[in-house]
């Protein structure tokens, strides 16, 4: 059986991944997918390359958790998440998310949900090489609010809030 989650240094074949989500499954009517790529600019600086660090073990576990959440939430027939780590250059692929469903609404929603959560929960950190030197990328406010859109009751997100908020609440 094909894995649902892969964390790897190697590139991946987008067409093959999308095709595999519907191959031999005539109940699939919709495959929504996303490819994230390295850009040559970020926050105004030129980016020559970046290195993605991750937390082996927790990475796979958190991606699997995200997929399980999506399964409970939408009617999906197949899902696939691939995330690369290591050194990557502009135009290189970073991440692939693909979701197969009978209907397009579920496929789109689950795919975007997985990407939003992946951005805020999966333990990856980007270090960019710019003309001014190397720097760690700061988490973006926009990503947190994108993930917050999906919170139903807040319990799932409580552990994700910043430490400061927890301390202030005491």
């Amino acid at each position: 059986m094909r894995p649902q989650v892969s964390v790897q240094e190697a590139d991946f074949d987008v067409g093959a991944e999308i095709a595999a989500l519907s191959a031999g499954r005539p109940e699939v009517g919709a495959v929504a997918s996303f490819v994230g790529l390295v850009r040559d600019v970020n926050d105004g600086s030129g980016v020559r390359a970046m290195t993605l660090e991750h937390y082996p073990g927790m990475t796979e576990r958190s991606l699997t958790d995200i997929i399980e959440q999506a399964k409970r939430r939408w009617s999906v027939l197949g899902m696939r998440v691939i995330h690369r780590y290591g050194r990557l250059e502009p135009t290189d692929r970073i991440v692939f998310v693909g979701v197969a469903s009978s209907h397009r609404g579920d496929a789109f929603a689950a795919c975007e949900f997985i990407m939003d959560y992946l951005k805020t929960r999966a333990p990856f950190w980007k270090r960019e090489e710019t003309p001014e030197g190397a720097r760690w990328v700061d988490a973006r406010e926009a990503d947190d609010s994108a993930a917050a859109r999906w919170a139903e009751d807040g319990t799932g997100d409580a552990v994700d809030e910043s430490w400061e908020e927890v301390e202030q609440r005491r």
Partner: protein
Amino acid sequence: MTMKVKILYFASLREAVGQSGEELELPAGVETVGALRAHLAGRGEGWQALAAGRNVRAALNQRMAGADVPIGAGDEVAFFPPVTGG
């Protein structure tokens, strides 16, 4: 009774503390993720990156964990900055 935990540091936090991980015998009174963080920050210098007010996240046994979460023998605790994947 020994209370050893495995601690991991990632990304900018790993660089600040100068190591990717360690085994530690928990000092008396250090019973939560938050208490462990405060204990480590008390080592000074680069360890200040773990001080209160810094934007640090933690995981206990590979799941995100808040400051109140209790820790015990054999646990794997990780500290890192907010994630920036995808």
